[in-house]
């Protein structure tokens, strides 16, 4: 089902990689220019009327953000995930809040948690979840939450642990060899 959809739309929207996941779920990559026409087409002509979610994946090793627009076609019980690769050094993307008003919320979150900007999206620069956040956007891969937590919030002291193998070495054969 999804494959035939892809075959139909492939040339028209210059689609990239296609990944069939289940019979009713597939992911497809699209370029930034073709995103909006594709979404419009899917929404208005293919029945993908429900924007399930919009989120990002940080592929820091490839220096890209992957934006995933997941659309659902309830009548035919199928989903399509539209992937868009965004270079990490140019984190600006076109807003789709006029297609789905609810997208504005997702875009606010992406702005805050990934630092991906959506100019013109309503209230995109307002605080959403965090308040007074002064570090790098926390969902980026380079943000180390454990290190941040250790530096910011003191833990209760008095914890120590031992590695069983190392401890047994200390106790049983401290010189590296036992004499048994």
């Amino acid at each position, binding site marked *: 089902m999804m494959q035939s959809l892809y075959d139909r739309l492939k040339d028209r929207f210059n689609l990239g990689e296609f990944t069939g996941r289940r019979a009713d779920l597939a992911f497809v990559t699209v370029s930034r220019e073709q995103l909006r026409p594709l979404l419009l087409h899917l929404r208005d002509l293919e029945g993908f009327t429900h924007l399930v979610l919009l989120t990002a994946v940080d592929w820091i090793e490839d220096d890209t953000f992957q934006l995933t627009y997941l659309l659902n076609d309830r009548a035919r019980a199928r989903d399509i995930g539209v992937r868009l690769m965004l270079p990490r050094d140019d984190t600006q993307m076109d807003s789709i809040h006029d297609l789905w008003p609810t997208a504005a919320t997702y875009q606010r979150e992406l702005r805050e948690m990934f630092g991906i900007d959506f100019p013109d999206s309503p209230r995109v620069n307002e605080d959403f979840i965090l308040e007074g956040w002064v570090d790098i956007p926390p969902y980026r891969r380079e943000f180390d939450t454990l290190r941040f937590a250790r530096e910011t919030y003191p833990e*209760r002291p008095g914890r120590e642990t031992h*590695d*069983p193998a190392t401890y047994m070495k200390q106790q049983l054969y401290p010189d590296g060899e036992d004499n*048994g």
Partner: protein
Amino acid sequence: MSVRDVLSPFAAWKHLFRDPVSIKDPFNREASERYRGFHQNDIEKCIGCGTCEAICQNGAIDMLPVSGVDGVQTRPGDSGLRPRIDYGRCCWCALCVDVCMTGSLSMSNAYKWVEADPDKFRYIPGVDKKHWDDYEHGYRRPEGHRLNAPERIEMPELEPGERIDSFAEIVGGYSVEQARLEADRCVTCGICVATCPTHMPIPEYISAVRDGDYEAGLKLLYDSNPFSQICGKICTRRCETTCAASHEGDPIAIRWLKRHITEQVPFERYRAIIGEPAAATGHSVAIVGAGPAGMTTAFDLARLGHKVHVYEAQSHAGGMTRYGIPEYRLPFDTIQREIDLIVSMGVEMHYNTRIGADISMAQLQQDHDAVVLSIGLWLGRSTRVPGSDHRNVYKAVDLLRRIRDGEQLQAPKSMVVIGGGNVAMDIARSMARLQQQQHGQIAITLTALEDKSHFLADPVEIKESIEEQVTILDSRGPQECMVDDQDNLLGLRTWRVHSIFDENGRFAPSYDDGDEMVHEGEWVVEAIGQMSDVAILGDELTEKLDWNRGRIQVDEDGRTSESWLWSAGDMVRGPDVVHAVADGHRTARSIHAHLSALDKQENA
């Protein structure tokens, strides 16, 4: 909206005269039987493997030493550590209970703990006494609910029918997929490392198998054991007896995984992976005996840049691994490759050179900075029962050596083996093969002093012996090798064993002479232990050295009372390959320290 909508709500008043449904005494309400409340730990069952700590996503568990509490102490198979849980972290997910390797950890259905001091919410279950220690109910790992596979991946082996008439290697070795699955079972706790005599980095090389990084694995192996290929096949694998997985399932097949690594790396790459020896130091060391201990010492010293000469009486190196272990367990080419690798480090071999006959100890002392004596245990012990001096009563070691040397033995139609150790199994199974080849049928009886549960032999060996139609009788004490008038050996007469040791733990078997059996056999083979052939040392040296119950007395580094002479291997430690390797390392280290000290003196 109607009158009904105004009146209907008043139906609620019917509850006025019903009893309230409140719990009368909520302070003493017991939680459900499965409730995941506060932790309990059976500290005697627990081995402190730290798997609970590894799986805890909250970082709530610390492993703390509790030595001395209720007899817990650090010993092989038990780290002496016990988990301490921080209830400022715990989320009661019970993954620690699910993953616990011994099943010692569980949860009671106690759930109330109020404290003004936040630092008090840490305790070692089972050690710090809590009122819920004895709670009957609570979460226990449900039957069959395991987060790691309890069963070992089956090793491909020849079926008894296929293997019984040949000396072809029985064990086939894991495929990559099988090895990965088996390696996957390991929980990387490292309890086994302490048990391994040479402390190989077992979890690390198993991780290498898991990751498919065999070259890194091989490097780990050879840094700790130059007999890795051999140990991969015939190691006595003490490690597996203490493996955390053995408590509730099969231990990890550590030996087979080691073997798998050595099989996966092409032999040509070995040398490059192990690395070049250090620059020559100018020191020279002589090693007597090319067994595992001697060759390990040679390998270590050669890598450190010392010149090593190995003197071997036989025509091939390998010692007991070459001459004492049947081919179906350890093929020749494996040994040869191992020796070649060691020799390639710059060790000079002198084969067919017998000390005392071809070269004297005094000569060695003179030519070298240090001498290592690692001549193993080559003389079989005798039961000394009447008739044991008959020509058809053999020592197992002698027979095995002859078989391995390629001699075409004429197998007897029937024979009896005395002894319950691995050597007894080896000779029984080797002879069974010869019998099958020559006579088409097997008639071998093996009698041992011990009962089945105390056999010294590897259980796998016993199982395979039985598969190969060896009759095994336990608790039989040999009384006489029966000889008829024509001086033909008839067989062995045994009594049933009451007990082997007396109250003081000394070897003093007592028998039940009412339960007598006669085992028919043209041959009787004694496999009850070996001795070292120390006669080669010469009287003068023998006189000088300190002795302890027939063995040369050495210090903990293997050094004898003579400062230039070290002794290592089976002759010091008893028969075991991996112990010999460990001994070799130790000796090499001691010698290296000695040689370095010499350098310092010279420079000073």
